[in-house]
């Protein structure tokens, strides 16, 4: 029995003349996400994208799992391909729907006939299919109002398709249609969630990670990569950029006033990130900050941080509670990795009493107490790249 995946796009349908551009990007992303599973044919017809495996033992379960994470998809279904005649439909439907119908008590059949030349009308298709299913599964009863399973029979131009309920897609916009931005990622709970949220709006991600060995470990770096590979299941491949930050942090700790070290550090991170992001063709920075969460995330502190860059800084978590952030982290599967206890660059040098209402001039004076330009140049020269898929 041939099985395919039918994909309905969501918000994209609302786009006007450039809808096809969005769809093409989404198709490219779908292709990328299931590339390793084998050959498929992807076609676009009648506002549906069809994924047809080209080999016998294609792993449809895995393909469905991956497609469920591609942004831009509102809903999708796995469907059985039948010939465009009732005999074949009635022969295939009971077998194909076995799993769903055996575990249900009630069902109904809905027919959709976009090929008006088909010999039967929709109500007839419903009746005939319903009868065949009732014969095959006598325990079932029909319930047209609240069925446990809705069986769809779609008669389209190029074939007939049988499937049960649709699965929800990941929603959002296809990654790549919303521009390119760089996420500053530390390894905590917040930044992977922020990355996910921006990717959901179609933003293609580059990830910038500041590492300070030996204050931070290789395991912390590995943890960040692990987090990114989870985010990449949704966001597609991510360029990971590792920035050696030890020298700058040590110099800040030695030379700058204690209560401003965190802000000075944040500003150097912003400056470095800006230079790297521009070089990589990004148009914005993304952080996982949420207002008031820690001292460096007060409104005044954020203003001081923002003043270090001329790029827009997106903070999708800005108005969220920790609980809400954690709920998303759990949903996308980053939480367990995020809470692994390794030092990351944000915790090692934390001062006892950081300034919560900093003055920009004071922070600027503090940051000039070290040779930031020279140190930043060295850091940029020594960045490492890796593609996370």
């Amino acid at each position: 029995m041939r099985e395919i995946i039918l994909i309905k796009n969501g918000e994209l349908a609302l786009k006007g003349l450039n809808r096809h551009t969005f769809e093409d990007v989404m198709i490219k992303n779908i292709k990328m996400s299931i590339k390793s599973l084998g050959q498929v044919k992807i076609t676009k017809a009648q506002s549906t994208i069809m994924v047809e495996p080209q080999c016998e033992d294609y792993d449809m379960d895995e393909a469905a799992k991956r497609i469920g994470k591609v942004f831009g998809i509102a809903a999708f279904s796995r469907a059985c391909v039948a010939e465009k005649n009732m005999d074949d439909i009635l022969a295939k439907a009971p077998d194909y729907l076995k799993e769903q119908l055996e575990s249900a008590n009630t069902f109904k059949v809905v027919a959709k006939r976009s090929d008006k030349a088909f010999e039967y009308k929709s109500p007839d298709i419903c009746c005939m299919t319903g009868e065949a299913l009732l014969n095959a599964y006598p325990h079932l009863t029909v319930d047209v109002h609240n069925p446990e399973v809705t069986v769809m029979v779609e008669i389209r131009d190029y074939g007939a398709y049988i499937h049960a309920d649709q699965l929800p897609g990941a929603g959002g916009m296809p990654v790549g249609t919303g521009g390119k931005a760089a996420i500053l990622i530390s390894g905590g709970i917040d930044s992977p969630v922020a990355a996910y949220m921006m990717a959901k709006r179609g933003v293609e991600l580059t990830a910038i990670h500041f590492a300070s060995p030996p204050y931070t470990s290789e395991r912390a770096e590995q943890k960040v990569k692990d987090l990114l590979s989870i985010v990449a299941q949704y966001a597609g491949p991510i360029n990971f950029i590792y920035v050696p930050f030890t020298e700058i942090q040590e110099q800040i700790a030695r030379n700058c006033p204690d209560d401003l070290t965190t802000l000075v550090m944040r500003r150097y991170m912003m400056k470095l990130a800006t230079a790297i992001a521009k070089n990589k063709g990004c148009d914005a920075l993304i952080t996982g900050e949420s207002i008031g969460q820690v001292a460096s995330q007060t409104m005044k502190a954020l203003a001081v941080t923002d003043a270090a860059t001329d790029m827009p800084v997106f903070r999708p978590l800005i108005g969220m509670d920790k609980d809400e952030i954690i709920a998303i982290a759990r949903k996308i599967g980053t939480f367990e990795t995020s809470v692994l206890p390794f030092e990351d660059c944000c915790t090692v040098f934390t001062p006892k009493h950081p300034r919560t209402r900093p003055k920009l001039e004071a922070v600027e004076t503090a940051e000039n107490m070290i040779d930031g330009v020279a140190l930043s140049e060295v850091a940029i020269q020594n960045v490492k790249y890796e593609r996370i898929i």
Partner: protein
Amino acid sequence: MLKGYLDNAATTQLCDESKNAIISALDCFGNPSSLHKLGQISSAQLESARANVANEIKADKSEIYFTSGGTESDNLAIRGAAMALKRRGNKIVTTAFEHAAVLSAMADLQKQGFEVVYLNPDESGTVPVSAFENAIDDKTILVSCMYINNETGAVLPVQSLKAIIKRKKSPAVLHCDATQAFGKYTLNPEKEGIDLMTLSAHKIHGPKGVGALYIKKGVRVLPITFGGGQEKTIRPGTEPLPLILGFAVAVESLGDKKANEQNALQIKEYLKNKLSEFDDVVINSPENSTAYILNFSVMGIRSETMLHFLEQKGVYVSSGSACSKGKASHVLSALNFNRDRIDSAVRVSFSRYSTVEDADMLYDAIKEARTSLIRSKR
């Protein structure tokens, strides 16, 4: 053996003798329970390995039950003894700085309604006999006490406990997690009044994944897993012969334990002496601790930072405490050290292969770390 490796209380490098024994045993694939010749060959090897391990602690070979290692032995001993004796009482006495395998098993028993008393170490760094004296009573069914603490090296008064149990007319069996002592000291559970003793292979240059529980003849332990009747139904499951033979050969290859201890002591004293040059180093191991473990803090430098710095210099140690984000070490917390000291704790641990050179590598690296690393502000 790897130079600069000073984390032998975590695990040890497989010795050549054990490695070779494992490799050749991989071909001896017969199931010891099979009745045919191949099974017979394996069974004979298994029993001779059992005799080897038994001999090391002057036990009878029928008292050795192979397990997957220290954690399983601890669980089997504690849960198995508690279940066997639950009709005779409800109280269990242990210490607050046991290994997690013991503490977690205890926490589970608490959930099941047992009363568990955790004895804290005093300023001397160990749990005094008097604490056991006060805690053990005639309702106590199990006393579990480690031989040597894995983080500080403190030696516990296990040998004195059987007398207390008897005096208090307690039905308790005495379990001892001897993971850090086995193979380093001459142990004799029968003489020391220990009913159940946890042994592990990978702390003595044997393979990971195998250990044993000594169960004194006549002491009843109920199984915690069920299956095909191996290990006299106490620990069912087809025996991993290569690991068990590797274990037995590691035991055979221990050498002169007295001389080994002398060597470790010399390194430890040498290191302590060198570290005493630094006014910011405090020793966390108690005075009477084992020669094989030295725990100290370089105040202000976090354990994990120090660990990674040392690793860059080819020196491998353990952080006494996970890190600022992780939980503080329960052992050092039980000793009431202040947070700074706990956050900076480093454990070095020796084996019979350790040398003064290893200690020098550590000393040089610490010296450099003290001047180059930024100290935490707390």
